[in-house]
């Protein structure tokens, strides 16, 4: 090949490369999508697609505020103080406490100034009493209160919320505690309803009229039947025991520690012989007959109780009803002594009193002899009680029910 031919080929290559340089040096055409980071695509020319991911980053810079200081909310103008506190989201109750505190401090400072002249003359005034001074001071302090502490609601713009509504909660009645809660609530609602009916009765002055008494009795019966209609037979039986006037007999027994079942038994027996619990008026023309009937009922009740309790338990029951034992038991309980110790001391008391009773009845003895023997019994009993109770408890007993142990008494 000649040089001319090589030159032609080279010139052609010149043309191709020149075209390539022209293509490569053209800037790309971009089409942006409106979306911030959406991918868009377009075809550049005939054979190039440009896909552009546009990421828009927004960076927010936050000022660093100076640390909070109480002075930012505090203000001598209390309405501003309230507004500032509210602005921080401070609870209303706390705002009330803060502002009341401020007002009280203002009040106390001004009251001090007000009282100062009276304080200088205190003893001069005290000679004849501070009654008049108190009246004058009260009036002045009243004005001061109006200017300070009594402005609380005005400054806050509202009175304090009545918290009693929020605090209202269900207080179950022990008499109904054996029932399911739903039933207890039904009974409570019934009671509320009948109380309203009673309250709606016209008011009366002085003694209650027979009409009112009859009406109240009628309402009471309605209430009772309404309640009873809600109860099963078992519940009704328990209800009757719990609402009996003798339900508290078992509760009052000192040193007996009755079980619930024993207390129910006591209530049932006392209900059965309710005439035994009746009081009889001595002025009643039928006093003798009524008293005899009562005593007979008491005897029958004792028999019934004997049948219900075993002998030992029955003896405990009778002891628990004795005032003398109750005093001894109280002392034993105070000094954490066991019941057995109280029983022991009570036995000593009974024996001693029995001896004393026999001595008093013994006409063969002179007064001096009797007194001497009584003193001997007393000394012996006191020594025995001190041994059982211990020195401290015995001394306490002698001051509380055991006065009979003191010499000469």
């Amino acid at each position, binding site marked *: 090949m000649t040089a001319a031919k090589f*030159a032609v080929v080279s010139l052609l290559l010149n043309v191709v490369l020149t075209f390539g340089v022209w293509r490569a040096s053209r800037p790309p055409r971009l089409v942006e999508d409106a979306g911030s980071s959406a991918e868009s695509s377009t075809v550049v020319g005939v054979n190039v697609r*440009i*896909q552009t991911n546009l990421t828009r980053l927004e960076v927010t810079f936050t000022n660093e505020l100076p640390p909070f200081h109480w002075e930012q909310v505090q203000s001598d103008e209390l309405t501003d103080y309230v507004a500032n506190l509210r602005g921080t989201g401070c609870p209303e109750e706390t705002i009330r406490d803060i502002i009341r505190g401020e007002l009280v401090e203002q009040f106390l400072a001004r009251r001090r100034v007000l*009282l100062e002249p009276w304080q200088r003359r205190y003893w001069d005034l005290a000679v004849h009493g501070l*009654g008049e001074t108190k009246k004058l001071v*009260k009036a002045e302090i009243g004005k001061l209160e109006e200017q300070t502490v009594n402005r609380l609601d005005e400054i806050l713009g509202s009175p304090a919320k009545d918290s009693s509504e929020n605090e209202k909660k269900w207080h179950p009645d022990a008499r109904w505690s054996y029932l399911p809660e739903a039933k207890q609530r039904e009974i409570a609602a019934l009671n509320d309803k009948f109380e309203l009916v009673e309250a709606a009765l016209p008011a009366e002055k002085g003694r209650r009229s027979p009409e009112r008494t009859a009406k109240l009795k009628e309402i009471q019966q309605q209430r009772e039947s309404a309640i009873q209609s809600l109860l099963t037979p078992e519940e009704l039986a328990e209800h009757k025991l719990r609402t009996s006037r003798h339900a508290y007999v078992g509760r009052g027994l000192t040193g007996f520690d009755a079980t619930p079942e024993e207390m129910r038994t006591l209530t049932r027996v006392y209900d059965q012989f309710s005439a035994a619990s009746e009081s009889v008026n001595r002025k009643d023309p039928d006093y003798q007959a009524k008293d005899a009937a009562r005593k007979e009922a008491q005897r029958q009740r004792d028999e019934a109780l004997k049948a219900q309790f075993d002998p030992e338990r029955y003896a405990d029951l009778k002891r628990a009803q004795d005032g003398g034992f109750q005093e001894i038991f109280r002392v034993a309980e105070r000094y954490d002594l066991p019941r057995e110790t109280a029983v022991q001391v009570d036995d000593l008391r009974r024996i001693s009193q029995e001896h004393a009773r026999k001595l008093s009845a013994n006409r063969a003895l002179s007064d001096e002899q009797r007194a001497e023997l009584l003193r001997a019994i007393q000394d012996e009993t006191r020594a025995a009680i001190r041994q059982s109770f211990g020195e401290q408890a015995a001394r306490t007993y002698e001051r509380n029910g055991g006065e009979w142990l003191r010499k000469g008494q």
Partner: protein
Amino acid sequence: MLNARSILILSLGANLLLGGWLLAKSSRRGAAASASPTNVIAPVISPGRQALRVLRTNLVEFSTNTVDAPGFRWSQLETNDFRAYAANLRGVGCPENTLRHIIVPDVEKAFRAGPEDDETAPFWENASQTSARNLAGQRRKHAQEAEKRALLRELVGVDWPVETYELWIDEEEPALALGYLPDAKVLGLLAVIESIAPAGDAIKREARGLDIEEDAEKLRALAQSMQRAALAVLSPAEAEEFLLRCYDALQDDLFDGDRHVGVEMTGVEYRELIRQASSGQNWVEDMVVAGFGEQSTDIDDIGKRRPETFDAEARALLGDTRYAAYQRSRDEAFTEVLGMAKNQKLPVDSAIRAYDIRLTAIEEARRLFANDTLTPDQRKAALAEMQQATAQAVQQILGQKDGERYARTIRDAMKSPGNQTR
């Protein structure tokens, strides 16, 4: 003229330049593509079109703005942990008194919400169970109160019971009686006095209604500790004034009615009189024992006691006449006739004259009973005559109705003049 050889050389040179440029351009693109993994040149096929490659580019646009930080919120301070709450409040410069106003009601509320004493008791509960439940409830309450006060002391430095604080704000009588002291001292003092209540109640509770000898000693020790604590709050002069004012308040009618009617006394003299009356008495201890003990001591009687030295000292202070007037003002017989005179709007002098008649009549009756020369009948007749004359004299002063009433009391006193105080 260029020959073919020269054209070839120039053309080859041009080829080298153009080829070099293209190579350099393509190597720069390759480097850019490897630096950004998303800048991938990938062949894609576009339907219906000739697609040679896809050029992916990532563009990142930054925008910045500035906003104020959210302001302070109360919730940043408040917490259920009282210690942290107090620390947070102090941390933001909350003044101590304001902190007290915030914390104290919150603590009080928290302790009020504690377990209740009126929990429903089992219905069939025996005496021992009731007693044990009550005792446990009272002990729990006592422990809670002690815990609350300890917490308040720790948190705000003071443990004034809220009731004491309210009493100090609301009542005029303590304000008058204790207004010579700064408020903080009064509240501290009242807190000391109040602080013995739980301990006294505990002794009373544990006594279970029994009068126990050793309890009186415990209560006296309690009163002594209270006095020591009170002295720590007050200066000696303030303490002396406090005790004198308290003892004076135990006398009758500090805030109601008239005292020492018909007696001329300066405040300085009266203060000294009260000092003499209270001197040497353990009346604070007696008050505590009477308040919490089971012994039947009348608190009113404690203020009426006088030491043995009192009569002589008071007479020296006031002189005979004014001392007699002072004694008269404290006599119930005078108070009675003073009340009658007041009701009838009579001057005080009328009451004094009627009272003097009474004293004279009793003195004469005393002489009459001491006269052994008289027979019982003579004595009886003389007494009746004296009673008649006394009644007439009193009625002239007080009028028929009140005169008769007062004369009746004089008649009774004349029957047993030995029992009457001179």
